[in-house]
Structure formats: C-alpha cells, structure tokens
C-alpha cells in the first residue's frame, strides 16, 4: 500500500494518479469486458434453459407414463367391477331362472285350482216352485166340477209344499256352504300367486338396478378407454384418497402387529434364550418378529387364494383345485400359528407372575406374591388377543394391495411435482444469469462515469456538428 501511495511525494497525488490510470485502463478494456460478461451470462442462460427444457421434457414423459399407468389401473379396476356385477347378475339369473319352471308350474297349478274351484263355486239357481202350477190345477178342478173335499186335498198339498220348500232351502244352504268353502280354499292360492309375483318383481327390479350400475360403470370404462381427461382426473383423485386411507389402515395394522410382538417377544426368550444376539438384535425379538411376518405372509397368501387380492398373479392363475388346497394349507398354518401365539401369551402371563413373585420375595413382601385372584381375566384376554390378532392381520392384505397400487400414482405425482419445480428453478436461474450479466456491465460502468460522460458529450457534439453541416 505504501508502495502504491509512494510513487509521488504526495500520497493524495499518488492516489489520484492511480485512480486516473485504473479508470483509463478500465475504460479502454470496457468493450471487451462488456462482451465477456454478456457472453458468459448468455451462455449460462442457454445452459440452464437447455437443462430446464430437458427436465420439462422428462416431466411430460413421466406425466404421460403416469397417465397411462393410471388409466391402465382404472381400466383394470373397472373391468373387475363390471365382471363382478355380471357375476352377480349371472348368479341372480341362474338362481331365479333355474327355478322359473317350478315357479311357472306352481303358478299354473294355483291358477288351475282357482279355475276349478271357481267353476264349482258357480251359484245354481233354485228349482222353480212346482206347487204354483199344482195349486192352480187344483183350484181349476174345484171350480169346474163343484166337488166337495177339495179342502183336504189342498191341505195335503200345502203340507207337501211346505215340506218341499224346506228341502229346497236345505239344499240351497248346503250348496251355498260348499261354494263358500271353495272360495275359502282359493285364498291361499291367491296369496301364493301374489307372493310369487312379488318375488319375481323384486328380482326383476334387482336386475334392473344392476343393469343401471353396469351402464354407469361401462360409461366410465368407455371414458377411460377413450383416454379422456375427466376420467384421468377422477382416477387421480381416487388414487390419492385410496393412498391416504390405506396408509391409515396400514398404520393401525402396524399398531396391532406391535402389540402382537410385545405379547410373544418375552415368552420367546424361554425357547431361544433371553440374551443371545443375532446381528446385534435379541434372538427372541427376531424370532417373535419372524412369527408375525410369517403370519402376515400366510394372510397374504390366503387372501390371494381367495381371490380377494391380486398381488401375486401366479396364485390367482392357479387351477381351482390347487387354489382351494392352498386356502386350506394357509388357513391351517395360520390357525396353528395363532394357537402358538395364544400359548405364548399364556406363558407370558405365567412368567410375569413368576417374576413378580420372585421380586416380592426378594423385597420380603411374601403376601403380595399370593395376590392373584382376578389374574385369569388378563390371562384370558391376552390369550384371546394372541389368537385373534394373527387372523386380524390377515386382512392387512387388502389395504396393502391398495397402498401398493396407489403408491405408483402418488410417487409419480410427487416426481412430476419435483421435476416441474426443478424445471422452473433452472429457467429462473437462466433468466437470472442473463440479467446478472446486464447488471454487471452497468456496475462495471459505475467508476467510469467521467470518461463515459465525456465520451457521450463528444458524441453529442459530433452529432450536432453533423446535423448543422447537413442543414
């Protein structure tokens, strides 16, 4: 510094001299430096822009792939739903139409019976009263022949008539009674016909309802096949919902597995030792974890064999006989493991009691050791949990399948978001460097304001001289 300020006797003069020299040098180097800064800014801008375009291209490719994955998954899901709906319709039709001939026969029989009864129940008109003719004949005879003793004849006729009337009335009552009985017999047939027709109507309504559902699903399926944006949007939002719901259920299942683990880890020490380590972990803990993992695996296979989930296509494609065998094998293993867990849970309680008794003995509290009147409740609860939890964990397969399927979409969406952000960032950086180049040229010019002003002034004077000369 002293050297710099010592080139003249006066430091101020030296400083001024240096300033003049530096400014002059900077002024003469100005066009080159400007060109360099702007070129560097432009090069960086192009580099980042190319990067941004590349990332944007990757994002578009990923979005397209994600879209295709989503559509394929949606198509598959819709196919499954429609297939299931058709299965149900098939089942309904098979069940109801197979009994349609019996139903028809039942209806025909009922109708025949009703017809027969109805024809028998037709009201027979009572015989016309014969005594009117007889009385008039007698009356005519009496008046024509002037015979005596007509009265007794009439009395006899009267008597006969009363008797005949009584008999006719009795016959009429009997016939009416029979008709009413026949009509009564018809009532259950009417009811049966009504019920049968009601059942048929219900089935037809159910079929109609299912056909409406199938129509709706088919419409959605068509949208998916046509690659429509609306279908993609619906599938995407559904996928996100499925992801979060399945993640929640999985978290609950993990909680269950943790409880299961704590139930069997302690008594496992009785089998494999309490202190031996494998890979830095207690062997008893590893054994308990293995049991739980085997249970979950068996549950997965069981669900696959039952065709509830479709994580392993190989199992789904097995022949039915083999599949049923697999169902029984996995269920048996699961049952045995659940029984083992129940036993271990019991052992856990026994060990706990033993430990408490020993601790009480070492503390000198003999009475506490004997206090276990209601312990059977916790023992039973633990055994129950040990037996039920493996079966409950079986159902993890369902949310797991949904989680795995929706995870593809969610990861794809996240990756798209990241790529989009990176692309935007690169574009901003590119623009920033270009503008930074311009800014740096202006900053470079700041200390050169005097020569620049001078040059501008000269330039203006030259321009005005030229203008005057032209005029």
């Amino acid at each position, binding site marked *: 510094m002293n050297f710099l300020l010592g080139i003249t006797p006066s430091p101020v003069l030296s400083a001024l001299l240096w300033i003049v020299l530096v400014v002059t040098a900077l002024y003469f180097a100005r066009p080159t430096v400007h060109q360099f800064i702007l070129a560097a800014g432009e090069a960086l801008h192009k580099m980042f822009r190319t990067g941004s375009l590349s990332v944007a291209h990757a994002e578009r490719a990923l979005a397209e792939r994600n879209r295709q994955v989503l559509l394929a998954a949606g198509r598959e899901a819709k196919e499954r739903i429609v297939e299931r709906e058709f299965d149900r319709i098939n089942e309904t039709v098979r069940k109801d139409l197979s009994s349609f001939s019996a139903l028809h026969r039942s209806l025909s029989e009922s109708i025949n019976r009703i017809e027969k009864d109805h024809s028998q129940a037709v009201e027979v008109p009572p015989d016309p009263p014969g005594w009117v003719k007889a009385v008039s004949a007698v009356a005519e005879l009496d008046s024509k022949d002037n015979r005596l003793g007509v009265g007794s004849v009439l009395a006899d006729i009267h008597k006969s008539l009363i008797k005949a009337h009584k008999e006719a009335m009795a016959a009429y009552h009997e016939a009416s009674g029979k008709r009413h009985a026949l009509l009564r017999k018809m009532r259950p047939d009417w009811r049966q016909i009504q019920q049968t027709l009601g059942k048929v109507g219900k089935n037809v309504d159910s079929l109609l309802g299912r056909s409406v559902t199938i129509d709706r699903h088919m419409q959605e399926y068509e949208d998916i096949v046509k690659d429509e944006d609306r279908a993609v949007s619906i599938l995407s939002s559904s996928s996100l919902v499925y992801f979060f719901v399945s993640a929640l259920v999985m978290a609950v299942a993990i909680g269950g597995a943790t409880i299961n683990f704590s139930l069997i880890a*302690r008594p496992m*020490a*009785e089998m494999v*030792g*309490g*202190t*031996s*380590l*494998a*890979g*830095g972990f207690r062997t008893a803990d590893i054994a308990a974890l293995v049991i739980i993992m085997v249970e979950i695996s068996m549950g997965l296979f069981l669900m696959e064999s039952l065709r509830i989930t479709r994580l392993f296509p190989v199992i789904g494609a097995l022949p039915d006989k083999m599949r049923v065998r697999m169902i029984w094998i996995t269920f048996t293993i699961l049952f045995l493991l659940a029984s083992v867990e129940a036993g271990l849970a019991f052992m856990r309680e*026994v*060990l706990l009691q*033993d*430990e408490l*008794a*020993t*601790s009480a*003995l*070492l*503390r*000198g509290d003999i009475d506490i050791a004997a206090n276990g009147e209601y312990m059977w409740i916790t023992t039973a609860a633990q055994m129950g949990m040990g037996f039920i939890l493996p079966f409950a964990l079986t159902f993890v397969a369902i949310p797991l399948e949904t989680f795995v399927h929706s995870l593809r979409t969610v990861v794809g969406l996240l990756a798209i978001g990241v790529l989009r952000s990176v692309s935007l960032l690169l574009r901003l950086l590119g623009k920033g460097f270009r503008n930074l180049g311009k800014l740096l040229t202006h900053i470079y010019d700041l200390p050169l304001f005097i020569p620049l002003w001078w040059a501008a002034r000269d330039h203006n004077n030259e321009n005005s001289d030229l203008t005057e000369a032209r005029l």
Partner: protein
Amino acid sequence: MKSLALVLFGVLLASCSPPQSTNTGVYMLVDTSGTYRDEIQKAQQIIRYTLSRLDATDTFAVARVDTGSFSEKDIVAKMTFDDRPSTVNRQKRLFAEQVETFVNEAQSSAYTDITGGLLQAVEYLNEKHPGEKTVLIFSDLKEDLQDGYIRDIDFDLDGFDIIALNVTKLRSDNVDPREYLTRLEQWQTKVEKSGGKWRVINDLDGLEGLL
C-alpha cells in the same frame, strides 16, 4: 459383482462374529469377624437387592470373610444364571434361600482376611469371564490376619469395580478418626494401584447406583 459378493460375505461374517459378553459378574465378601457379625442382616438386604438387579447369564457369588478367606469353602452361594427367564427366577429364589440359611447359621470368626477374600473373588470372576466385574466388600475394612498368613501380594484388578459397603466406624476410629480415613485411603490406593476402580457406599438406602 465380485466386490459386491465380497461385501456381502463381509457383512455376513460380521453378523456371525461372536458377540462381546455384556453380562455382569458380582462377588460379594461378607465380613463375619468379631462384632461385625451383627451387621449381617444388612448384608442380606444388599444380596437381595443385587439379586433383583441381575439378569440372565449374570454371575453372582457370596463368600464369607473369616480367618483364611482365600478358599472356595468360604463361598456361601454361587450361581451363573440361565438364559431362560423362568429358570433365572427359580435360581434367584434358591440363592436367596441359601443366603437365608447362611445368615441364620453364620458364626463369628476370630480374624479378618479381606485380602484373601479379594484374591478369591478376582480368581473366581476371571474364571467366569463376565463383561463387567464387580466385587462388593461388606466390611469395616479392618484387616486382622492370623500369624503366618501372608497377604502382601500384588493384585491385577484391571476391569474390576471394587465397592466397599457399610464401612462402619470402630470404637478406636471414634477416638482417632484418622485411623478410619487412613484405612479407607490405604484400600483405595491398593485397589487403584492394581488397576481397579474404588467406591465406598455407606448409605444403604441409596443402593441405586450399586450396579
């Protein structure tokens, strides 16, 4: 591919390597000489507390300090606990019973050979190879050797924790406390010089830091 296989093999070997022992070995010397015999109930409390703190594969032995303590015959009870929790509980109960019998039947001895007992403890624990080795000395630390007994021997107490418990003051200590302090200092020097760690716990209500 070759290097990957090598790494995998290395990881496999590392996971299969014999683990370092993490168990504990405790040897307790119980002074039965003279009037200190009256303190034996407190020793029983400490033994029970120690039993409650020990776990599977740990080793515990209780030995009396009498005229000549460098002997296996002076070991009252000894146990290396099993790996299975149920067996450990049974062993602890059996140990407690043996100690109970000793406490009821222990006789007062004429001399006090603490150094011999310590030698026996070191030998016993070294033989068992526990991860942590602790010797508890339940005594007033006043050594009184019978004529002819030589105990001027160098120890190797590297890796040992020596804890003196219930170091009571003698009548002479009350007259001249320097005797008590000197006694403690001598033992501390002796232990630390041999590579061991020395601690004194006189408050038996605060046994939490014992093991």
